[in-house]
């Protein structure tokens, strides 16, 4: 049987060099034309940290190779493809059941990402082969719109964009709104720093999102849908447009699709990259061609949305869940998770974890399990400090709360939010004040400028954080931050402003001593804020190799050969170059 060789060609794979690997593979295949081979591409399987990934399927077994280069590919081709001998050295998974990286998958539960990494995203046949478009057919032929909504309601699916609003209820409101012109919008304006769940889903399996939208359109009585996708996701946009075209050609989208009375059209609208356009009313304004700023609610979009018509907005992940739920039943989805948080959740893991990438875990799993069991713990086996959940709108959860379950309410109790699925893992070298400053700067930059509290208030908070990390904090700063946070959380009109203080509030809650030592002792406990750090040489370890002194750009290091060196603190610009060049670990931060 012909072997199938598949290269992971999502953005993560491409940026790791998958195109070159694919190119080499094709030339090798050309050279060995006599050998029947199927060469394909697929989306992200989640192991972004090991890309490029290449899978060889010999018909009985599937082998996944990681960190594949052109060189390695040559060897794999010779040994495995031509010689039928897998190269164990680079093999990380066998049949997705065993292998060095199997731990990564062991605790995952894939619904949203069920096809990612397994199908060619551009292939409708691939999708159909895995039960694609069975759900919409079932809905159109066997169910009333009300029944569809009932299934979704029963599943307990909640909005995966971060708000966690029950999807069934949202659909019900939109269905109940009077009027014949209604809209479905898929929010693909994913903007949290470090988050790429939606991108992967769209790149790896666009059809499941489109199918989810169709089902929604049928359920609420809409005949038009928009995917509002950020223009920074060109691959996602291209795949969506391609899929829509293919579907339209087969009467699986458009007027009287599947030969039924139901008509549904989808357009892709590219956003210009304003973070706030992920907020549903701002998103609607943006589609309408207006300035993307949030609008006063009520009226909610379900009553008056796009072009003044009832509109239902869900994000990519929510829609991707929908076909699975319709096919498998709400009960099966609801069986997974906690009392109020059902099903699975996709997280984009970034930061100091050993395995960073995309994971989909069942609701109810603990943070500790994600960090240690799925992601393999902290790089360099340093101390786990906290995770930041929910991006700039979320908050940090300290390691002391690592047993917390993934559950909307549990996380909110700690001051963080589930968010859309960004999870940044931090270790002892991360300064929490600086982390808060980073996120606040992000929200400040992304403020649309409408509300006073967000436009000016968050800037004033940012200025305070800037001076704290610069070692110029004042005694009253913490109180001012708390006062401003309290006000901004009440006064702003959209999620961006309302949640902007969260990173500050949670770090103040769990890491207050770091703020205090910055302000009072002018010290950064994580030794990370440049203004508050001194680079020192441990004379016991210094061998006097002079490497540091040669590399110092400000000529701050002096010393005789073979004798311990000294850093002149007045000249030191704290670039940290010596710290990284020292071969004897003699230079430390204090």
């Amino acid at each position, binding site marked *: 049987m012909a072997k199938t060789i598949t290269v992971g060609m999502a953005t993560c794979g491409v940026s790791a060099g998958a195109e070159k690997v694919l190119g080499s593979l094709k030339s090798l295949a050309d050279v060995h034309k006599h050998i029947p081979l199927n060469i394909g591409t697929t989306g992200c399987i989640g192991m972004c940290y090991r890309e490029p990934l290449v899978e060889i399927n010999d018909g009985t077994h599937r082998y996944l190779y990681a960190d594949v280069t052109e060189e390695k590919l040559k060897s794999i081709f010779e040994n495995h493809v031509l010689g039928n001998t897998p190269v164990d050295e680079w093999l990380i998974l066998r049949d997705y059941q065993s292998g060095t990286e199997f731990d990564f998958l062991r605790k995952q539960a894939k619904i949203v990402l069920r096809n990612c990494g397994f199908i060619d995203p551009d292939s409708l046949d691939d999708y159909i082969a895995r039960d694609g478009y069975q759900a919409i057919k079932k809905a159109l032929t066997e169910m009333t719109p009300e029944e569809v909504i009932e299934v979704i309601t029963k599943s307990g699916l909640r909005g995966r964009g971060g708000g966690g609003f029950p999807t069934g209820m949202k659909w019900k409101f939109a269905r109940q709104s009077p009027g014949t012109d209604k809209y479905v919008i898929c929010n693909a304006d994913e903007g949290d720093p470090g988050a790429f769940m939606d991108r992967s889903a769209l790149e790896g399996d666009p059809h499941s999102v489109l199918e989810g939208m169709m089902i929604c359109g049928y359920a609420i009585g809409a005949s038009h849908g928009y995917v509002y996708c950020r223009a920074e996701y060109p691959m996602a946009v291209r795949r969506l447009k391609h899929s829509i075209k293919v579907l339209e050609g087969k009467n699986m989208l458009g007027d009287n699709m599947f030969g039924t009375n139901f008509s549904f059209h989808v357009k892709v609208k590219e956003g210009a990259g*304003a973070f706030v356009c992920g907020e549903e009313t701002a998103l609607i304004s943006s589609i309408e061609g207006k*300035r993307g700023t949030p*609008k*006063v609610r*009520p009226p909610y979009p379900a009553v008056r949305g796009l072009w003044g018509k009832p509109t239902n907005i869900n994000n990519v992940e929510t829609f991707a869940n929908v076909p699975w739920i319709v096919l498998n039943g709400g009960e099966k989805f609801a069986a997974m998770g906690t009392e109020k948080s059902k099903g699975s959740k996709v997280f984009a893991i970034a930061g100091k974890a050993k395995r960073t990438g995309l994971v989909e875990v069942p609701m109810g799993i603990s943070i500790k399990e994600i960090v240690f069991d799925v992601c393999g713990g902290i790089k360099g086996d340093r101390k786990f400090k906290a995770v930041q959940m929910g991006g700039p709108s979320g908050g940090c959860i300290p390691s002391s709360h690592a047993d917390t379950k993934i559950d909307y309410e549990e996380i909110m109790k700690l001051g963080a939010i589930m968010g859309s699925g960004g999870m940044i893992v931090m270790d002892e070298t991360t300064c929490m004040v600086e982390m808060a400053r980073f996120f606040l700067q992000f929200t*400040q*930059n*992304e*403020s*649309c*400028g*409408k*509300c*006073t*509290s967000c*436009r*000016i*208030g968050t*800037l*004033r908070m940012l*200025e305070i954080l800037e001076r704290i990390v610069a070692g110029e904090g004042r005694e009253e700063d913490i109180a001012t931050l708390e006062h*401003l946070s309290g*006000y901004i959380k*009440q*006064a702003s*009109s959209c999620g961006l402003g309302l949640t902007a203080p969260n990173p500050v509030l949670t770090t103040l809650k769990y890491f207050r001593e770091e703020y205090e030592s910055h302000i009072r002792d002018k010290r950064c406990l994580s030794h990370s804020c440049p203004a508050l750090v001194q680079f020192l040489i441990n004379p016991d370890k210094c061998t006097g190799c002079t490497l540091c002194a040669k590399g110092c750009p400000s000529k701050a290091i002096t010393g005789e050969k073979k004798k311990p060196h000294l850093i002149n603190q007045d000249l030191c610009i704290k670039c940290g170059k010596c710290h990284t060049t020292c071969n004897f670990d003699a230079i430390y931060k204090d």
Partner: protein
Amino acid sequence: MGKNVTITINGKKITADSDKTILNVARENAIHIPAMCYEPRLEPHRSCLVCSVEDKKTNKLLMSCAMPVADGMEIETDSPAALQARKAALEFLLSNHYADCRGPCHTNCPANIDIQGYLALANVGKYHEALQLIRETNPMPIVCGRVCVKYCEANCRRNYVDTPAAINFVKRYLTDLEYDKLGKPVIPPRNGKKVAVIGGGPSGLTCAYFLTTRGYEVTIFESHPKLGGMLRYGIPEYRLAEKVLDKEIDYIISHGINVETGVKIGKDITLDDLRAKGYNAIYLAIGAQVGKPMGIHNEDSPHVMSGVRFLEGVKKSGPPKLHGTVAVVGGGNTAIDVSRTAVRCGAEKVAILYRRTLDEMPADKEEIEDAMEEGVEIKLLTAPKAVVTDNGDLLGLECFEMYLGEPDSSGRRKPLQKTDSEFLFKCDHIFSAIGQDCDLSVLENRRIGEIKTRGGRTIIADPETMATNVEGVFAGGDVVTGPKAAVDAIGAGRKAALVIDKYLSTGRIIKIHDEFLSSKTALSELDTSFFEEIAKTTRTRMHKHDPKERTRHFEEVDLGITTEEVEHEASRCLTCGCKTIYDCDLKNYSTEVGAVQRAYRGRFKRYKADTRHPYVALDPNKCILCGRCVRYCGDLIGIYALGFVNRGFETVMKPAMDKPLAETTCIACGNCIEVCPTGAIEFNSAYKNPGVFRTSPQRSVCADCGVGCRVDINSFDRDIFYITAKPHETYVEGELCKKGRFESTYLRNKDRIQAAVEDSKGPVTLDEATQSIVKNLNEIKNRFGKDSILFLVSPGTPNEEIFTFSSIAKLFDSSLIASAEDLMKADFPDIADMTGMNLSTIKQDEVSDADLIINIGPGLTTQSPVFGFKVKRAVANGAQFVQIGALDDELKRYVSTLIDCRKGQERKILDSIAGSIVKDKRFDKSASEKIEGFKGFIGQLKKPGRSKFKEKIEGLAGILLDSSKKMVVIYNNAGTDNKNSDTLNSAMNLLLLTDRMNRPSNGVVITHNACNSQGYRDLVFGIFTTKENLKNAHKAIKEGKVKAIVSLNEDIDIADAFSEDILEGMEFVASLSMFNTSLARISKVLVPYLPITESDGSIVSFDGRVLKFRKVFNPVTGHTNLDVLNRILHLASGKSYSIDYVREQIAERLPQYAELIDTKKSSFYLIDAAKDKGLFGKQLRFFS
């Protein structure tokens, strides 16, 4: 409508509609909630966050402008949490508000003078008003105009350009010119409370003045024989002449202040005595009049005298004769005064000994120059050590030479003695002028309480309230602060008066609540680069007596400056203060909550203002990004000239692509100015120096087109005013157009005819002019008989004047009454024979509910812009807009069907629509066939045939067949191209055919371009004459039968109406005219005609709204237009009509004008079509 819910606001139970917001409900119940981004005509924006309130039930903060009311809410508008939130919002806004409410001249003036305001007034020659403005906070402008230390000029921003504006010279000019014209003071009734003021210096006088003018009985106790304190006894005659000072003091005292001079408190009478005599409060303002001792050896020698005692002696006993050398120790103004006085007393040599250098000398620089010019020598770095005498004879003053060390606490470098530098300064007289102390013996012999002092040197009083520790006793001026300037004492006196007034009326001592003042310097150092662009100018120098000559006498040295120099200096004012100071919401609300601008200091934005637009000035520095202008301009009138550029903190309100506003689509309606809650968008003033004019609004009407907008004339006086239209009644939307807001310049135009002129005699009195008119008209009537005189009247004339004028026509046996425009085309569009009235059949506002708007002809948006806004809004809300004929550019984005037929073809199009309807199977003629003329009408109709508009016409016919679709036809009579009566009749036919008459939002709106076209037609053709007569007039003119013309306010170019030979044939022409028009130029008698702002009257909008108005300004001629007409009437008939009589007459003949005599009647004379068949309907008929 939502459901009814019950909420409480501030404890008050209110039932309200759940569709309304908390803010709406509160305001409907007269509960104040501040809000800045809220604009009733726009969707809630919820951005400024100033409208925050607290729901006590949930303890949640809510933004009241956007939050609908819900059952059970317990709203508190001013709970601590709500106030804190409001304050935070304001303080955030202020932290990025790089703007000055007031210039530094004002904020640094202890007497709070509105300096920018008075300079602006002086600049336009309003000297009296300028002086009065000064006197509002400072009753001693004569004194300050001469001797003020001028904190204003020291802080003037012009210092960054060149030299400060000579503010004080202008003040002096004003007092010299206008002081004698202040008029007799009006003494208010006494309130029964008594205040004793101890000390008649500037502080005591000021306090007494402000208390007296507030109704208190005030007595000043003064130990000296005369009032004035240091002004009189400390300032030499040559700087402040006693006769000038007396003028000021006498005027203050003439307000009813009691004065007891020669009474020393503590000796002649005690504070206890005053209490016993019933004084409710005491103000201690005894100054600091005792010279400070130098503290040197032998100082008590009789050759040493304190400077202030010397000056006092000169004032009281005349100048002594001085010989030899005079040494004056000190460096302040007193030292200068003493030395210059010594020069005038004949001293051969006068030297000032000062221990530092010229740079540190506290005396006024100009004074130092003056002294040096007069020969005074200044010995610097010299300090006295001992008075050296020999057997009682003065040898001189032993001095140290000094040098300057490090700066001391005053910031000046500290003088230090050079060792062994002692030398003897030989002299014959020594005057010490190193400062003054207070004489606190006033506090002796009293039991009312121990008034706390600083070691017996000065009295301790709260700097904000002037209250001492003893109840009812206040103190201010030098006795509290130590010696300071006159203006400081004046400021203290005023502050004390205001606190004492509050104290005596409330029993509480309250700090006078300061208004919030934004300042650029609160945010950071001033950006001086701004000043680099300003052209440098030279500061005016004071004209003075010649130095050589002036030392021989004590006459005032300063002579004042000229009128031209005043204008020059006033123009040098950089107008740092904001023009919106009196109605800025940001300022007012910040004052309300006590916001502090520096509370959240951080990064802020600086922008360049755009003042290139002729009418609108944009200053983004002041913008709070509430978006009212942006949303108004875009969402409400569809112009989109303004927008938000950038995002987040970088967001700025301005036109796109950095264009100047003047180069955008802006139609200069100025509504953005109106909706702006701050000074970010202001009038780009027409005045020379925009000033801060404190105006007050008076309701009037716009005299431009026939839309009938109410306006507010916000005037300082008849020359200075701004026109706005704040929403104040349901109908008035508070919007204006360029014409109404900016182009009514004729109201203040200096070119207006100001006096009557008779051809042969030149200027004549009104009596002479009217007599001549009547005499001439009588002659003509007698010679040529009936209808020999044409009475021309402009449709822009108020009803009452038209009525009286037409009555005059009757007297002269003429039925030829018309506007020139009607004369040119006697067959003006008229639907009277179809409906019974020649009037729009619906109200303008009904257009908002229309489904289909058919606009006929061009020019709607230029002729009736405000109605154009309403049309655009209706289209934005879903109406279809059909244009028949040429399309206005402004309407391009609104048009859904354009039938751009040739001019004159409009009727054909309308008839084709009717034809298409009639031929349609679905057409139900049951209603229309009952109307007279139906058969004749439909008999002549044709189908559209092969017209290129066939499809569109049939489409429209299809819509009209649906009786649920509401149709409004706009017959744009104002557009000059569109004068075809048939077109209007065809439009009416269409309404009748489809049974759309007398149904809401179905009808025809006929626009007019003069403000009273409707009233003119109603009156002239409804009471005095007929359309037939109009045609006769046309004929009579051509045939030369008209021998005289009398014109009322008709400003049409006369050559358009009559050929030259006809005009030459006139025996007599008389005009009441505002300007020198072509008709005015050929008039034998010309009488000034006054605009609407100068008379009482009424006009009628084109949809039949009767708008009464009162005069805003007194008639410039002293006589209203009605006065003039009445004179003519009286001369001709012996009768004259009061305005009330005229209105009764009109209302009697035209019942729809009942509003004129009965204010309870609706101002619409259209009766609501929904309820009543109305004025139309009794005699409907088709036109064919």
